[in-house]
C-alpha cells in the first residue's frame, strides 16, 4: 500500500510538471515559431510570463527524479540504463533551455538599433527556442518507452534487445503528442495573460495546437491498439476509462471555450484535460513502472523509506503550497497577469 501511494505521488509530480513546466516549454515553442508583425511583442509576452515562475516549475521534475530513486531505486537504475541516451539528450535540452533563457535576458541590446536584441541575445534566443521544442519530445518519448514494452529488464539489469526502446513508433508518437500538449498549454495560458491583438494571436495559436493534439491522439489510438494492447486495455478498463472520459470532455470544453473567446474557462479546462489524460495513463500503467518487467511493488524501497517520504509530504506541502500560491498570485493574479504591451520601465 505505501508503494502504491508513493507511485501516486510520483504521478502527481509528473502531472504538476506537465501542467506548469509544460507550458514553459510551449512558450519556447511559440518563441521559436514567432511570426507576423507582432513577433517581438509575442516574445516579450512569453518572456514576461515565464520569467518569475519557470525555475519553480522546473523543480517538479527534480521531485519526480528524487521520488523515483528514493521510493523505487531499482526502477530508477533500470530507467537510467535503458534510457541512457534519451536521458542525456533531455539533460542537454534542459541545460541549454534554462541557460539560454537567462543568458538572452542579460545579453546586451543591439548597438545600432537601441531597444532591439543584440547578436548574442538573438543567438541565445535561437538556442532557447530549439531546446524548448526538442526537450518535450524527448520527455514524451521516455514516457512512451516505459509503456510500450520495448524496455526489458531481467534481474535488475536492462536486457538489450532490438532497436532502442525509445525509437519505436509508440514512443515517437508520444513525443509528438507531448510537444503538441505543451504548445497548447502555453498558448492557452498566454491568451489569458495578454489582451487585444496579442490575445488573438495566442488564441489562434492555441486553436492550431489544439488541432495538433487531436491529430496526434488520432495517430496514437491505432498505435496503442496494435503496438501496446496491454495499455489499450488498461486505458479502457473500468478504473481508467472514467478519468479519461473526463479528460476528453475537458478537452472538448477547452476547445469550445477558446472558440467562444472565454480564455479563463479554456485555461481551467486545459489544465483538467492534461491532468486527467496523464492520470488515466498512470492508472492504466499500474502496477507497472516499466512494462512488463518492473512493477511498483517489485521495485519499492524499504517500507521505512516509503513511510518517511509519505509522512514528510504533508509537511513539505504545507510550506510549499502557500509559497507557490503567493508566487502565482503576485505574478499571475487577475490584476497583475495581463500583459498589455511591452512596458517601457
Amino acid at each position, binding site marked *: 500500500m505505501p508503494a502504491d501511494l508513493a507511485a501516486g505521488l510520483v504521478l502527481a509530480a509528473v502531472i504538476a510538471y506537465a501542467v506548469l513546466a509544460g507550458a514553459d516549454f510551449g512558450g519556447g515553442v511559440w518563441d521559436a515559431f514567432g511570426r507576423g508583425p507582432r513577433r517581438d511583442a509575442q516574445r516579450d509576452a512569453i518572456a514576461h510570463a515565464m520569467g518569475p515562475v519557470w525555475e519553480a516549475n522546473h523543480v517538479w521534475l527534480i521531485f519526480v527524479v528524487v521520488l523515483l530513486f*528514493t521510493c523505487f531505486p531499482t526502477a530508477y537504475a533500470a530507467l537510467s540504463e535503458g534510457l541512457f541516451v534519451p536521458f542525456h539528450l533531455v539533460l542537454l535540452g534542459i541545460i541549454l533551455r534554462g541557460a539560454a533563457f537567462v543568458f538572452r535576458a542579460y*545579453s546586451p541590446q543591439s548597438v545600432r538599433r537601441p531597444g532591439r536584441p543584440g547578436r548574442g541575445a538573438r543567438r541565445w534566443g535561437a538556442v532557447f527556442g530549439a531546446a524548448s521544442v526538442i526537450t518535450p519530445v524527448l520527455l514524451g518519448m521516455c514516457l512512451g518507452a516505459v509503456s510500450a514494452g520495448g524496455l526489458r529488464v531481467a534481474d535488475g539489469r536492462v536486457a538489450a534487445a532490438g532497436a532502442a526502446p525509445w525509437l519505436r513508433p509508440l514512443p515517437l508518437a508520444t513525443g509528438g503528442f507531448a510537444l503538441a500538449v505543451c504548445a497548447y498549454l502555453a498558448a492557452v495560458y498566454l491568451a489569458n495573460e495578454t489582451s487585444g491583438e496579442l490575445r488573438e494571436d495566442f488564441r489562434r495559436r492555441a486553436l492550431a495546437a489544439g488541432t495538433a493534439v487531436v491529430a496526434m491522439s488520432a495517430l496514437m489510438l491505432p498505435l496503442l491498439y496494435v503496438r501496446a494492447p496491454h495499455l489499450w486495455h488498461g486505458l479502457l478498463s473500468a478504473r481508467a476509462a472514467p478519468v479519461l472520459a473526463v479528460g476528453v470532455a475537458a478537452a472538448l470544453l477547452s476547445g469550445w471555450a477558446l472558440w467562444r473567446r472565454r480564455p479563463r474557462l479554456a485555461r481551467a479546462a486545459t489544465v483538467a484535460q492534461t491532468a486527467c489524460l496523464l492520470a488515466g495513463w498512470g492508472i492504466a500503467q499500474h502496477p507497472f513502472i516499466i512494462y512488463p518487467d518492473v512493477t511498483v511493488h517489485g521495485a519499492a524501497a524499504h517500507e521505512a523509506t516509503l513511510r518517511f517520504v509519505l509522512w514528510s509530504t504533508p509537511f513539505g506541502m504545507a510550506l510549499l503550497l502557500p509559497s507557490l500560491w503567493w508566487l502565482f498570485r503576485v505574478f499571475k493574479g487577475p490584476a497583475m497577469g495581463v500583459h498589455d504591451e511591452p512596458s517601457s520601465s
Partner: protein
Amino acid sequence: MDTLAAARAQMEVSLAFHMVFAALGIGMPLLMTIAEALWLRTGRAHYRDLARKWAKATALTFAIGAVSGTALSFELGLLWPRFMAFAGGIIGPAFALEGYAFFLEAIFLGLYLYGWERLSPRAHLAAGAAVAASGVLSGVLVVAANAWMQEPVGFRPGESPTSALAPFLSPAWGQMALHSTLSCYIATGFAAAGVYALGMLRGRRDAYHRAGLALTLAVATAAALAQPLSGHVSAQHVARNQPAKLAAAEAHFHTRRGAPVIVAGIPDAETRTVRGALRIPRLLSFLATEDFDGEVQGLDAVPRALWPNVAVTHLAFDVMVGSAFAMIGLGLWFWLVRWRRREPGRWLLRALVAGSPLGIVALEAGWIVTEVGRQPWIVRGVMLTRDGVTPVAGVAATFFGFSLLYLVLGTALALLLRRLATGAPPAEVVVPRTAEAAHAG
C-alpha cells in the same frame, strides 16, 4: 577510456561546474539581503544599487546552478545505476527534503527578482531572507547524502535500511555541513570583493564601490576566520573515523607517535616517502589527538588496494589550507587598514583582485580531498566505486559532450558576469522584468 574512468570524469566535471553555482547560490542571496536591509535602514541609495546588482548576479548563477543540479540528479542514475539501486532508498530521504528546500528557494527567488515593484519593501526583504535561508538548508541536506557515503550508518550490508533517517544519522554530517556552508560564504565573498577592488583600482572610489568591498569582505572574513576552527573539528573527526583519508591528505604513510605535519612535497606511494616537503614536527599528532605524542594512523594501516590517490589528495589538501590562510591574511589586512581609518591602498586592492578566485579554489580543493580521499569506495567500506558504475557503453562520448557544453556555458556566463560587474548601475535601471528580459528576445 574505460567506462569507470569516463564515468568518474563526467561526474567530476559536472560536480566541479555545479559546485561553483551552488556556492554562489548560497552566498549571493545573503549578500543581497544584507545590502537591502541596510538600504531600508539607512535609505542610502548605493545599498539599493548593490542589492539590485547582486540580485542580477544571483539570477544568472542560480539558473545555471538549477539546470546543472538537475543534470546531477539524473547523472547519479545514469553513471552509477548500481549504486543508486542499492543506496537510492537510503540517501533518498535527504534528497526528498532537499527538494522542498530547493523548491522554496526557487519560489522566493522568483518573488525577489521580479517583485521589486510588486511587493512591499518588508515583504521583498523577507523573500530575500527566505532565499538565503532555504539555500543554506538545501546545501546542508545535500551534504547529508554525501556524509552518508563517507560514513554509512543505519543499515546492514545486504539488507534494507534499518532507519529511513540513515543519512541524518551519519556522524560526518554535522562537521561537513558547517565546513561546506562556511566555504560557500568565503568563496562568494572573496569573488565579489575582487570586482569592487578592481573598480577602485580603476579610480571609482565612490560610496558604491567602498560599500561593496566592505560588505563582501565582512561576510568573507568572518567566515574565513571561523573556517580553521571548523576545519580542525573536521580533521579530528576524519582522523578518528576515516583514517585513510586523513593519512592521504597529510601524505602520512607510516603509523607513528609524534607525527609531523607535512607541507607540500611530492608523495610517492610506491616508496612511501614524500620528496621535498616541509615538516613541522609533532604537529599532526597534536592536531589529530590533542597530544604531541599521540599516535596517528598512517596509510600502512590500510591494505594497499584500498588507498586513495595520495598525491592528488595531499596536493588538494595543501591547496585548500594554503588558500584558506591566504584569504585570512587578505581579510585581516583589509580590516586593519580600515580600522586605522585609511583608504585601501593599491597593493591591498591588487592583492584582493588576485585573491578573488581563492575561495572557489579552496572549495574545489576541499571537495577533492573529501571525494578522492574516499576512493576506491563509493560508499566507504560497503561498495566500491567500480561496482556502482553503469554497464552502458558510450560514457566517454557523454563525458566529452558534457565537458564541451559546460565549457561553452561557463565562458558565456563569465562574459555576461563581467559585463554585469563593470560599473555602478544608473539610478533608473531595475531588474530585468518585462522590458529588459523581453527586448532581449
